[in-house]
């Protein structure tokens, strides 16, 4: 059963996946970028972006999905997300203290408002999305073997 699982699912699933996986990615980016105006934010957006790549891996098998986002690229994005979040926090020292909201607040209800909150949302979504995709790839690539019983 593991061989068929790695080659992907039937033709119906592959066709529907081809149509919807771009829309899922776009929806994740929408929820992420409007995090300070409507419900959502970095965590939900990051998980939805990770779900779009996992959908690709489940429907087409792992070779096709790993060509789109390999393990090295996923680990790179996760580290970049964490370092970006920390650097935004340290830049708050220019204004006064750690994590100060130092950019301009702008007018409310616009997309470019609320200081550092949209940038923090993007950093969090990199970290959460790439981290969850790395967890799923690691659990899928563990080949099932019968252990040696003593």
């Amino acid at each position, binding site marked *: 059963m*593991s061989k068929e699982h790695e080659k992907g699912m039937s033709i119906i699933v592959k066709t529907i996946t081809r149509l919807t996986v771009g829309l899922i990615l776009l929806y994740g980016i929408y929820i992420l970028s409007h995090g300070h105006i409507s419900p959502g934010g970095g965590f*939900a957006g990051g*998980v939805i972006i990770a779900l779009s790549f996992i959908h690709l891996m489940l429907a087409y098998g792992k070779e096709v999905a790993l060509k789109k986002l390999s393990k090295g690229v996923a680990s790179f994005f996760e580290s970049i997300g964490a370092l970006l979040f920390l650097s935004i926090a340290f830049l708050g020292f220019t204004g006064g203290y750690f994590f100060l909201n130092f950019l301009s*607040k702008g007018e409310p209800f616009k997309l470019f408002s609320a200081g550092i909150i949209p940038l*923090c949302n993007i950093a969090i979504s990199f970290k959460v999305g790439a981290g969850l995709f790395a967890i799923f790839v690691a659990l899928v690539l563990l080949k*099932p073997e019968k252990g040696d019983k003593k």
Partner: protein
Amino acid sequence: MIELYVLLIFMIIGAIVAIEVKDLLSSVIALGTVGLGVSIAFLVLKAPDLAITQLVVEILCVIILMRATLKRDTSFSITGGRFLTTLITVGFIAVFLFVAKECLKDLPEFGYPVMKVAGTYLREGMMKTGAANLVASVILDYRAYDTLGEATVLFTAVIGVLALVRRIGRKKEGIKIREEDE
């Protein structure tokens, strides 16, 4: 609040089905319905941020659990007669619920929270941070340090999973290098 009671009864019945049924796949699917019930309960309690996050996280949880259980051949769980253990467990849970009922009288009544800190967040949140979503302003401006801690916990979990799954030096079919010794 009749819909909240209906949702809670549905969740309890779903949880009892999830733990009692013998097939592992059915148990994981029943867990999915409990998570869906929690997400709808978050919507009824006026928390839309949490409803979105809970729904997608529960989907991912069910996918990861199914990936672990589907390909193995033990798809039934063995139950044996253990009367003394069952008695002690049920007794402990009964004592816990009785003590909890006494403790819950000290909480403020359902629907009238004491909002000492949150009153300030609600009044001045929009002016001081500029964000219309007050929950996002709480997690990323007023309490951003907690979000940094949560990012660290996620990073540690990813490193933990990658360290558990890694294979070092499996050279031949019969000889396996024991990696539990490191």
